[in-house]
C-alpha cells in the first residue's frame, strides 16, 4: 500500500442471491428448486469497484437509491464480506453506518456510551476522560442516566454521533446519517467534519445532500446500478449525476394540470444565450424559458405566468406578463412566450417550474401546469446557497482618525 493512501479498494464486488420471497430457504423449497433446476438469480450490489482515498482527503459517494453506495461503504467498514476483490485501509476506522447501532434500549445513556465506544474499539479510559465532552456535544446532560428506550429519536442519534466522532479515528465512514437531527445539531455535525478535515483525517461518506458533497468533498465517486460510473471533482460529477437524474425523473413527474383549455401550454424548453436547449445552466449566464402555447380560439387579453420553486419546495419567485405590465391584446393559434433571466441569479441546485395562462381579471384559468419542468443550475465559485446575491465588499475604518475626515460631510 502506498504511503499516502488511507483506503484502497481493488476490484471490489458483492454478489447477492435473489431468492425471491424465500429469504431463508426451507428444506422443501430447496428440494423443489433442485428438482426443477431453478437456480437463484444473482444480483451484484456493487462490482469491479476500484478506488482509493488519499490520506487527508474527503470523498463522497453519490448515486440513486439502490445503486450500491451503502454496500460499498459496508465493504470498506468490514461489515460485509466481499465476494470479489480486496479492500485495505490504514489507521483506525470509525464507521457511522447507523448512529446508535448497538444501543440497548434497557441500558442507560451512560452505559450505552461505553458499550457503543467499545464496539467502535475505543479504550475505556479514553471514554471516561472525554465523557463530559461526549454528553455535552449530544446535549444530554440531564438525561444521561435514563434508559435510552425513553429517548427521542433525535436524542438517540445525537448520542451516537457524539460517541463515534469523539474517538478520533483516522478514517471516518459516514452513511447518510447527517440528515437526522435538528438544524442546530446538523450544524454541529458539519463543524465536527470540518475539524476532522483540518486534522488531516480521511473521510468517506455517502449522502444525497449534494450541496454538502460539493462543499466538503475533494472528490466524488458516482455509483449507478452497482458500477462506479464516474469519479472526479465534485462540480463535474454532480452535474453529470443531476443531469442523468433529471432524465429519469422527467418520466416520473406527476402531471398536475387543469384549466379550461382555451389556451393550452404545450411545451417548455430552456435555452441558453446561443439558443441551445439545455437542462443545466451555470449561474450568472442567460436563461430563456420558452413556453409554447396553442390558442384554440381567439382569446382577448390573456396573461402568461410562471413560478419557480427550489427542490425543497420553497417558492423562490413568481411572475406573469400582467405584473410586468405587458398587455397582450389577443392570441390565436400557436405561439411562444419567452421569459429571459439574464443574468441568472439562481446559484446552485435543482429548480422546478410551474407555468400558467389565465384571463386578465383572473376569473378564468385557461391552463396551468404545476411543478412539471425542471432545470439545474451549477456554480463555479464556492459561495454557498441556492441564489447568487452578487455581494460587494467594502472595508471601512471607523477609528477616530478616519472619523475626523469629512468624507461624506455635508455640514
Amino acid at each position, binding site marked *: 500500500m502506498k504511503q499516502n493512501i488511507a483506503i484502497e479498494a481493488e476490484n471490489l464486488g458483492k454478489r*447477492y442471491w435473489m431468492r425471491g420471497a424465500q429469504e431463508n430457504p426451507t428444506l422443501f423449497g430447496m428440494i423443489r428448486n433442485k428438482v426443477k433446476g431453478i437456480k437463484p438469480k444473482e444480483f451484484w450490489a456493487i462490482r469491479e469497484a476500484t478506488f482509493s482515498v488519499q490520506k487527508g482527503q474527503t470523498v463522497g459517494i453519490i448515486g440513486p437509491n439502490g445503486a450500491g453506495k451503502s454496500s460499498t461503504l459496508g465493504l470498506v467498514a468490514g461489515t460485509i464480506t466481499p465476494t470479489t476483490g480486496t479492500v485495505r485501509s490504514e489507521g483506525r476506522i470509525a464507521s457511522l453506518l447507523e448512529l446508535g447501532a448497538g444501543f440497548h434500549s434497557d441500558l442507560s445513556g451512560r452505559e450505552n456510551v461505553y458499550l457503543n465506544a467499545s464496539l467502535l474499539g475505543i479504550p475505556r479510559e479514553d471514554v471516561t476522560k472525554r465523557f463530559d465532552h461526549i454528553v455535552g456535544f449530544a446535549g444530554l446532560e440531564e438525561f444521561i442516566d435514563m434508559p435510552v428506550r425513553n429517548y427521542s429519536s433525535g436524542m438517540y442519534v445525537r448520542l451516537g454521533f457524539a460517541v463515534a466522532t469523539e474517538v478520533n479515528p483516522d478514517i471516518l465512514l459516514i452513511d447518510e446519517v447527517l440528515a437526522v437531527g435538528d438544524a442546530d445539531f446538523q450544524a454541529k455535525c458539519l463543524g465536527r467534519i470540518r475539524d476532522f478535515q483540518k486534522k488531516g483525517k480521511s473521510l468517506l461518506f455517502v449522502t444525497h445532500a449534494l450541496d454538502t458533497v460539493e462543499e466538503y468533498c475533494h472528490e466524488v465517486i458516482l455509483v449507478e446500478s452497482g458500477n462506479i460510473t464516474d469519479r472526479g471533482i465534485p462540480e463535474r460529477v454532480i452535474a453529470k449525476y443531476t443531469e442523468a437524474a433529471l432524465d429519469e425523473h422527467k418520466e416520473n413527474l406527476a402531471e398536475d394540470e387543469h384549466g379550461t383549455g382555451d389556451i393550452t401550454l404545450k411545451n417548455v424548453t430552456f435555452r441558453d444565450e446561443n439558443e441551445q436547449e439545455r437542462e443545466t445552466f451555470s449561474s450568472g449566464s442567460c436563461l430563456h424559458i420558452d413556453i409554447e402555447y396553442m390558442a384554440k380560439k381567439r382569446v382577448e387579453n390573456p396573461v402568461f405566468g410562471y413560478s419557480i420553486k427550489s427542490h425543497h419546495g420553497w417558492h423562490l419567485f413568481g411572475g406573469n406578463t400582467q405584473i410586468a405590465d405587458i398587455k397582450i391584446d389577443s392570441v390565436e393559434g400557436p405561439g411562444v412566450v419567452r421569459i429571459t433571466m439574464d443574468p441568472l441569479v439562481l446559484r446552485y441546485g435543482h429548480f422546478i417550474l410551474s407555468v400558467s395562462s389565465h384571463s386578465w381579471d383572473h376569473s378564468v384559468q385557461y391552463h396551468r401546469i404545476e411543478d412539471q419542468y425542471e432545470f439545474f443550475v451549477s456554480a463555479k465559485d464556492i459561495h454557498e446557497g441556492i441564489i447568487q446575491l452578487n455581494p460587494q465588499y467594502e472595508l471601512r475604518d471607523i477609528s477616530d482618525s478616519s472619523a475626523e475626515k469629512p468624507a461624506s460631510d455635508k455640514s
Partner: protein
Amino acid sequence: MIREIAAHRELVSNLVRRELKSRYKGSVLGMAWSFFTPLALAAIYYFFFKYLVARGAPGESIIIGVFGWNFTAICMNNGMMSITGNSNLIKKVAFPRFLIPFSVCVSGLVDYAISLVIQFILVGVLLALAGKMLSGWCLLLPLLAFHHFILNLSFSLLLSACNVYYRDTMHLVNIFITAFFFMSPAMYDWNFIVESSGSHPWIANLALMNPLAPILIGYRSLILPGPEYAFPWMTSSIIGLLLPYIMLAFSYFMFQRMQRNFADLV
C-alpha cells in the same frame, strides 16, 4: 481466538454486562432468577422421581445436576439466538462476530457462578442434615466450571451460526435439548446409569461419552463426599472429557467460515 478476546476484552465485558442487565431488567426478582429457576426444576424432578417412580436420587445430587444442566441449556438457547437477535449490530458494526455468542456464554458463566454460591449453601445444609460435610475437592470446582464453559461455548458458536443460515435450527434444537436433558445425568446420577445398563456395560460407556455426562458426574464427585460419588475414570469418560476441546475447535472453524455471510442473512 484468545488474542482476539484479549484485544476486545472491554467489548466483551460490556456485552456481558448488557446481556446480564437486559436479561433481568424489569423483573422483580432480578438476578435471583438465575438460581430460582434451576432450584424449582430440581424440586420438581426430586418429587416426581421420588414419589412417582419411587426411585429418586438424593436431593443434593439432583440440585447439582440440574444447576449444571441449566448452565448448558441457557448457553445453547441464548447462544443460538445471539446472532439472529443482534442483526443490527451485525449489519452495522464491524468487530469479531464470535464475541457475541462468546459473551452470551460468559454471562451464562457469571450467572452460574452466582447460582453455585446458593447451591453450595443448599447442598451444605442438606448434607449437614444428613450429618455429612462438603467434600474438600470442591475447591477444584472453578476448573470444572471452566471445562463446562468450553463445552457450552462450542455449542453456542455452532448453533448461533447454523441458526443464521437455517432457522430450522431453532426447532431442531428445541427437540434436541429435551432429548439431551434425559441423556445427561442431570436428574439421575452415575449409579443409576450403572444399575440400568445392567449386563450391558457398553450403554454406560456410551453415556459417558456424552461430553456433558463427565461434567455433571464430576460436579457431584467434587462436591459430595462418599465413595458412591467417586468419578468413574474410564476410557469413555476421558473421551467425554476431551470432546469439548475438539468440538470447540470444530465449532470455531465452522463459525469463522459461516460468519462471512452473516450480514447478508440476518
